């Protein structure tokens, strides 16, 4: 079977690109593993979040800004595709600060982003405790909360209904989903590629390698590289509670259905998606320092996921110099960048190029010595 585009990896990044290609009329196949694969989206906190993104790499800030600009219309398309809410809200995001040292660290980060070429990805302000209290009239803050940074254009969403909506939209656009297949090899054939999995061989004019931590095993075969390492994130959710936190926070977020989500951790070098009591306790303790009443909430579940991380934490996009038509895409913020992946990235890939916005997000940046 022959396609215009084959996307390897049915997670948040690959499915977004596949959806973007299929809805633009390309015959697209999405090669995906099964329910036991790592699925970074499971450990995504669901924020569409700008704060601190792109420090030292202004292209990442600009790319994040572009995605946030696209998100409201994209969210409406996703809800239409799946016929159900994806929990999208544009209410801004709060990063709580416990103690003056934390607030000063955040203030310094904002200052550096402000002075960087292009500025931060989205507006962000330091707010004091009184302003925070006015924003959260139904919550009582812990005594150590001195203030926060607040980015009013940021949003939140439910990552799992979002992924489901991408699949629904992809299938409606006559995309072909091949689950339960592990790709072993990509071979250049003529002007296209033969992609061999344990299930089948498919042929495509273009191939996008977007399988997160599976990239290093596949990408070098077609002249692509994206150094990624695993990072574990643990999450906690409480029982459903009467809405009392109308604005999502980094680390503490009440989703629209009432559950409070706490997390996540960033643990290096772990590939087992297991939780640890110590980390869960630290996350819960911090949440209780922010909102003491959370101590009464019952924890319903905790889990862990494994997410890909690049050497500088910024996304990587590349088209193969030796085998044009082969692309790689990987990032840690698949939800924030989802709208940009379905839109400008997919459009450029179909045109046989990458968006000008991401030219600085090329893996060659890892060869240069930092100045």
């Amino acid at each position, binding site marked *: 079977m022959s396609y215009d585009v084959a996307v390897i990896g049915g997670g948040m990044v690959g499915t977004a690109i596949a959806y973007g290609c299929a809805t633009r009329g390309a015959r697209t196949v999405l090669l995906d593993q099964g329910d036991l694969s790592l699925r970074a989206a499971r450990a995504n906190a669901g924020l569409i979040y700008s704060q601190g993104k792109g420090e030292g790499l202004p292209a990442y800030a600009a790319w994040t800004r572009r995605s946030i600009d696209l998100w409201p219309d994209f969210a409406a398309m996703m809800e239409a595709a799946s016929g159900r809410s994806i929990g999208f809200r544009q209410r801004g995001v709060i990063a709580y600060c416990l103690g003056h040292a934390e607030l000063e660290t955040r203030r310094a980060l904002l200052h550096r982003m402000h002075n960087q070429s292009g500025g931060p990805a989205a507006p962000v302000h330091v707010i004091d405790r009184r302003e925070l209290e006015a924003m959260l009239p*139904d*919550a*009582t803050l812990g005594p150590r909360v001195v203030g926060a940074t607040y980015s009013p254009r940021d949003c939140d969403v439910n990552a799992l209904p979002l992924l489901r909506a991408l699949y629904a939209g992809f299938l409606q656009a006559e995309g072909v989903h091949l689950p339960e297949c592990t790709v072993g090899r990509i071979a250049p054939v003529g002007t296209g590629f033969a992609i061999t999995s344990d299930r089948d061989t498919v042929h495509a004019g273009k191939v996008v390698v977007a399988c997160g931590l599976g990239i290093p095993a596949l990408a070098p075969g077609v002249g692509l590289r994206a150094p990624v390492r695993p990072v574990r994130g643990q999450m906690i959710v409480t*029982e*459903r*509670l*009467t*809405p*009392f936190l109308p604005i999502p926070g980094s680390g503490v977020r009440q989703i629209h*259905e*009432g559950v409070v989500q706490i997390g996540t951790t960033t643990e290096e070098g772990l590939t087992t998606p297991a939780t640890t009591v110590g980390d869960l306790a630290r996350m819960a303790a911090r949440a209780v320092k922010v909102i*003491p*009443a*959370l101590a*009464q*909430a*019952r924890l*319903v579940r905790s889990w862990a996921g494994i997410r890909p991380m690049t050497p500088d934490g910024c996304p990587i996009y590349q088209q193969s110099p030796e085998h044009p038509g082969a692309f790689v895409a990987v990032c840690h913020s698949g939800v924030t960048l989802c709208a940009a992946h379905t839109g400008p990235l997919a459009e450029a890939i179909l045109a046989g190029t990458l968006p000008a916005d991401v030219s600085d997000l090329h893996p060659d940046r890892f060869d240069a010595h930092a100045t």
Partner: protein
Amino acid sequence: MLTRPDDGKLTFTYDGRAVRARTGDSIAAALLAAGIQVTRATPVSGASRGPYCMMGACFECLAVVDGRPSVQTCMTEVRDGMRVERQDGARGLAVGA
């Protein structure tokens, strides 16, 4: 409707109605044995919910027990005189507590 040869010596109330239980019964088991299948309404859609997994995993069987909300009735043993009430909507936190 289940029938039991011996419906037990313990008594608790569910929304004021007396329910019999045997020593060692979970609240959920005793409710099901008495033909009561609904313990709450989900705050998402308002639809009825009741005991399902009976092993503490699904959190469907929540109810208010002796004034305490969101108790997993399948994981809580009946005590004589217990007061169990249907839980409608989400639980609020006592702000500032």
